């Protein structure tokens, strides 16, 4: 008798969990209520002393890689900027409007897969015009003496979520609240030989984010909750 009662309990638990999960599954896209600016237009060709390098306009991308990127991201921009001193910064912003359908890829995997082993990675706290910004500083080996110094951060919805584990928790908690977050991967990098190279990245960032009132700034460097 108890066995039959138990089976009734178990089956009804399962039935209600299937139905309940359908109701609780997040269906609203954050991107719908908060549209993301079109990157091609939002990212200008000049920022203070930095201008887009005319020689680097065309990029030949492996078509297979291009299709993977097109599946993962709904908007993307990659530009190389040079300043008067000849310093070169590579900027790459990747945006995915639905992080449930396809999650953004962190740089480590991409660099290693293309043959640029990651030498080190650490976190760093910056102040960007009054907002705190926690970034990754990643160093990847490009050649015998050259390394690529990569600064990147991740935004889900309206939350900065750079830490590997913390960002997962952030993704989950937004979905538990019923919203499907969008994802921004912001990356600047430059080639050099010493850690000093990171300061070139930050000089560029200060020029890029010169206007803290702009929607671009507020979306890419959200306020801490």
């Amino acid at each position, binding site marked *: 008798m*108890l*066995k039959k009662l*138990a*089976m009734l*309990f*178990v*089956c009804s*638990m*399962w*039935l*209600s*969990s*299937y139905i*309940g*999960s*359908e109701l*609780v*599954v*997040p269906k609203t896209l954050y991107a719908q209520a908060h549209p993301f600016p079109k990157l091609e237009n939002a990212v200008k060709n000049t920022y203070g002393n930095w201008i887009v390098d005319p020689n680097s306009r065309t990029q030949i991308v*492996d078509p*297979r890689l291009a299709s993977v990127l097109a599946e993962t991201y709904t908007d993307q921009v990659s530009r190389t900027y040079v300043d008067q001193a000849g310093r070169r910064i590579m900027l790459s912003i990747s945006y995915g409007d639905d992080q*449930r359908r396809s*999650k953004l890829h962190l740089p480590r*995997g991409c660099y*290693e*897969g*293309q*043959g*640029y082993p990651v030498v080190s990675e650490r976190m760093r706290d910056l102040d960007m015009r009054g907002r705190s910004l926690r970034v990754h500083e990643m160093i990847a080996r490009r050649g015998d003496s050259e390394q690529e110094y990569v600064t990147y951060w991740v935004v889900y919805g309206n939350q900065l979520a750079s830490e590997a584990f913390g960002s*997962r928790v952030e*993704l*989950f908690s937004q*979905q*538990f609240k019923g919203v499907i977050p969008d994802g921004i991967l912001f990356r600047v990098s430059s080639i050099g030989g010493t850690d000093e190279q990171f300061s070139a990245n930050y000089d560029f960032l200060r020029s890029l984010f010169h206007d803290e009132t702009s929607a671009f700034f507020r979306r890419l460097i959200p306020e801490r909750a």
Partner: protein
Amino acid sequence: MGVNLNAAFAYSRAWWPLILLLTFTIPALAEFFREEWSTDNQSHGPIIIAVSSYLFYFKLRGFNVESPSNLEIFYAGLLTIIGVMFLVAGRVIDLPAMSGVAVIATIATGVILSGGSAALRKTWFPIFFLLFMIPLPATVVSYLTAPLKLVVSSGAVMILSAIGEPVSRQGVTLNVGQYKLLVADACAGLNSIFTLEALGLVYLSLIESASKARTVLLTAAILPISISSNIIRVVALSLITLYLGDEAGQGFLHGFAGMLLFLIGLVLMLVVDALICRILVLLGVIKNA
């Protein structure tokens, strides 16, 4: 050994809790089938289920089913609550791994409500083995596949250079002659590792007299066997592309190479098992091969 219809009927009557609960796992499993199990990386799911079902049947042959005690029924209820939480959470945050755990919890619940903890103890291994069908999150798969891809590509380059072919490597892309070959996730062989392990276990259970040492050694050996087969496949495809052109390498021969790889893996497994037996006999661990 004919099929005794009466015995079969009595058997299913005793196992009705498990059978009923299995139907509740169908929606979750169907979703796995549509999503993760249809990708190159995790296509081993159905094979694991088939093997587990076989092991299940094997373990329960001639087992006398006893009704569960009240305490066991209570535990089954607790397990259900945990399973249900995993299912809902898994669906909300889109983590099929959690739904997979919920499926296994349901099966365990069905076993307990059918035959008590005695039945659970008898079938603990096939249930444990089901863990390998759980669809893994994409980040975990990338984390496991990335080093595998590097090992397979560098291994292939080593062999190809050793036989004098013009080849170089940039990450996981091979430059073979004038062609560029990308060692994709499927070539890393994550799912072929799982599949070979599953088949290895079936093979060992068929032998029945397999000692613990032999099982452990063979299970451990299947990882390098699988990686080696994948390296051989990449080498074969590189040579095909180099001498027969890109179309040949990407077309029919690509699938053929996949099947060949699998057969090589199986043959290697049998060979290694024979070697393991010889060694174990020599060491006196087992009596006869």
